């Protein structure tokens, strides 16, 4: 090839770039330069250029064409014709016109040949696919493509990124593209030191683990870059540590809300009434099994609403558990008022009976309670991943507690309950029917336990032993918070949840739990009446 030829080629390239730019900024007039034309050429480098141009053109047929090319399903005339005809062979054996997608009735079989690709073209196809994603009208696809470019951090993709950056209008995707550009520049030999340091800053701005990995790999870079990268890694580590703390707090709150749900009913029966109900955990279990039954009934009768069966199980569990509580109060606990230790033994016996009953009805194995679709998935918030079911349970706990407090402070029943708690005889003298209030209070506490069962069925195994695993924790929450004090239970549950989660990574799950128990035992020695004791003048409350 002569000098002149080469110069002509370069000029041609410039022209092509010009066309490309033209196509990018004004994509509408496809006729101005046919981006498909080069594909019909027998010259690999022209095919390659055509693929790049096609990808950048934004033509709606581009994806189909490039896919066909990659799969060797793109055909052209065996001998060049001026119309540069292109055909795609469909999987069913028929042919369509590549430019329009129209079906061709009579296949021009003997006079066409497949467009052949070599490695250079293949890599152009790969890049073009990335480009197509980058130019896709769907925001999520563009974001994903930019993210993939960042992770690849390939200097070869710089050109692609420039093209995409020029078109991109969405600020989020733009930022991702800039980060991808910076990552690619860091790996490119052609970038100046100043540019690289700027790139380090951009990458460091992400502050996540992939960015940290990329920066940490720059140890062998020129020293100012390496220094900047090391500083950035340090900074990222600190940010990540902060996110970690937030994540631990979130998990702690999540665990705390579960504890609180399990303990809220106990705070009523034990805290307000002074009844030690060792069968509390089993009432929670009954609530969980009610959820199961409601789900199966709904699935059998109204399959269309099976996603909403959980909402129906909340009142159902409240009613079942509450009624069960009233029955227990009337037949058992009523006779044991003023004898807390005997109550403890009798209700423990009751818990054994309930466990065995559920076991003989539903079997000893774990039951499958499915989560509705709107409860699965996760939300990303900065460096946090919040699973939806946990979020729902936190919200549910807050709602339940708010409702409970409203009942206690704004209803007739709540007023009577508080009156009976403060001074039973005086309340009776004022005309409050104390036995009725006792029964309803116990029913309310058990109903709340039933609701807790609905929530626990979403995160724990529903088995006859469900209650046993929560009873000790629930009692500890109430005792730690201070008996007779709902807010105390809230604070105690949150503290226990967070401390548990802080200790878990340090000491392991089991040791962390043991440490929490030991800390609690020691705490009770210091403050035998809990965090927020109800003050009184009696020597022995």
């Amino acid at each position: 090839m002569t000098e002149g030829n080469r110069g002509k080629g370069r000029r041609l390239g410039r022209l092509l770039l010009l066309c490309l730019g033209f196509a990018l900024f004004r994509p509408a007039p496809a006729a101005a330069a046919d981006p498909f034309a080069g594909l019909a050429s027998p010259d690999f480098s022209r095919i390659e250029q055509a693929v790049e141009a096609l990808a950048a053109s934004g033509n709606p047929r581009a994806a189909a064409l490039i896919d066909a090319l990659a799969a060797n399903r793109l055909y052209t005339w065996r001998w060049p014709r001026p119309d540069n005809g292109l055909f795609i062979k469909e999987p069913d054996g028929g042919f369509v016109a590549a430019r329009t997608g129209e079906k061709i009735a009579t296949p021009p079989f003997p006079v066409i040949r497949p467009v052949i690709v070599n490695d250079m073209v293949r890599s152009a196809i790969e890049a073009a696919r990335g480009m197509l994603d980058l130019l896709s009208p769907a925001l999520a696809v563009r974001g994903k493509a930019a993210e993939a470019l960042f992770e690849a951090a390939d200097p070869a993709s710089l050109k692609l990124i420039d093209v995409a950056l020029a078109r991109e209008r969405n600020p989020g995707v733009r930022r991702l593209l800039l980060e991808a550009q910076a990552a690619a520049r860091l790996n490119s030999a052609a970038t100046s030191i100043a540019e690289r340091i700027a790139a380090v800053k951009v990458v460091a701005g992400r502050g996540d683990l992939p960015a940290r990995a990329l920066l940490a790999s720059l140890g062998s870079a020129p020293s100012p870059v390496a220094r900047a990268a090391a500083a950035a890694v340090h900074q990222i580590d600190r940010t990540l540590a902060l996110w970690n703390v937030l994540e631990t707090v979130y998990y702690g709150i999540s665990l705390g809300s579960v504890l609180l749900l399990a303990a809220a009913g106990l705070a009523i029966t034990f805290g307000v009434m002074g009844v030690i109900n060792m069968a509390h955990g089993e009432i929670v279990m009954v609530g969980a099994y009610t959820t199961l039954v409601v789900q199966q009934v709904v699935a059998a009768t109204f399959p269309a609403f099976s996603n909403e069966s959980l909402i129906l199980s909340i009142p159902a569990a409240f009613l079942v558990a509450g009624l069960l509580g009233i029955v227990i109060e009337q037949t058992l606990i009523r006779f044991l008022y003023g004898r807390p230790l005997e109550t403890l033994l009798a209700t423990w016996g009751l818990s054994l009976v309930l466990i065995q009953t559920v076991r003989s009805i539903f079997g000893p194995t774990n039951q499958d309670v499915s989560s509705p679709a709107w409860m699965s998935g996760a939300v990303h918030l900065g460096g946090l991943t919040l699973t939806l079911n946990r979020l729902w349970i936190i919200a549910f706990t807050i709602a339940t507690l708010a409702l409970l407090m409203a009942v206690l402070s704004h209803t007739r029943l709540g007023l009577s309950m508080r009156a009976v708690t403060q001074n039973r005889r005086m309340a009776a003298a004022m005309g409050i029917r104390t036995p009725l209030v006792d029964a309803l209070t116990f029913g309310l506490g058990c109903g709340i336990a039933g609701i807790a069962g609905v929530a626990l069925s979403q995160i724990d195994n529903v088995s006859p032993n469900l209650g046993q695993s929560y009873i000790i924790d629930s009692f500890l929450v109430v005792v730690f918070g201070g008996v007779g004090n709902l807010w105390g239970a809230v604070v105690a549950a949150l503290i226990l949840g967070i401390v548990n989660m802080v200790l878990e990574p340090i000491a392991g799950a089991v040791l962390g739990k043991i440490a929490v128990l030991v800390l609690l035992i020691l705490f009770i020695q210091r403050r035998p009446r809990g965090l927020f004791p109800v003050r009184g003048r009696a020597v022995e409350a």
Partner: protein
Amino acid sequence: MQRDAHSALTVGLILGGALLMAVLDLGTAATSALHVPDFVVSLVGKYLCYAMLALAVDLVWGFAGILTLGHAAFFALGGYAMGMYLMREIGARGVYANPHLPDFMVFIGWKELPWYWFGSNHFWFAMILVVLVPGLLAFVFGFLAFRSRVTGVYLSIMTQALTYALMLAFFRNDMGFGGNNGMTDFKDILGFPVSARTTEVGLMLLSAAILAAQFLLARWLVRSRFGQVLVAVRDAESRTRFLGYRPESYKLFVFVLSAVMAGIGGALYVPQVGIINPSEFAPGNSIEAVIWVALGGRGTLSGAILGAVLVNFAKSWSTTAFPGLWLYALGGLFIAVTLFLPRGIVGSLAAGLSRLSQPSAAPLAVGARPEPACHAAPEPAP
């Protein structure tokens, strides 16, 4: 000690029954109608160990008003101390034939014994551990709890948390006590093969003798001046304090003593049952021990023994005869005893007898009147 028909009867029944068992097992032909099979002997030995636990619970609950829901922890700790000795006795006869390490340590890749296994190859040292470990734990726990006047339900929940924490701890392999599987496959004790008939009978007789001794000690203690103060603490702790006594010291002493008694029970239990594992710490076990006492009669000592034997006999029998019904029966027992038999069997019998003979005698057993005010009563003092 004065003449005491109650004690004589109890000790006579324990020792006489055990001897009769021994004779009927060893002294009769296997085909004889009077023959007692070997497995019954080890079952009886097991019941006797449970009776020691019940006696220990009755001592603190019946006489000091401390409702402990974690006494099985002391029982299990005594058992583990004995288990360590028995593991070391296996020596090179284990599956891995390691002369120095128990099998489970070889299995998790340990190269040498941890420090706390030091001396466990000596029987006398193991016996010291049996007494010391439960005693020390009870001392520390009781010292802290009684000094800060943690009483009633709060104390119950704390003891339950204690045994729960211990259960979780012993489930860990890294504790060096066999983790989930605990210790088993024992070969011999002091040179006698543990599964031999004569060893089983001997252990059963030894359990009976120690139970009788423990009963006499407890009986002597509660009838002494010390015991009178203890009952005063149970019924009116503040009043006793205002009279110049230190209730916490009395409670601490009896709590530690009771823990040691339970630990000895556990130590005798392990060679007869042949296994010790963390499920012995389960909170349910401790609560079950309380119901033995409640059934037999709280504050009667002999009732605790009777309750332990009766309930465990019923358990052994019904879990083979009606496997699904045992939990109903046990749960129903809890409810029925608290509702209809608050004094328990022995307490009710004693009350009936004393009403027949001398109507004015005040029974020692509780339950004749409502629970003292030291527990969280629903009605605050005016």
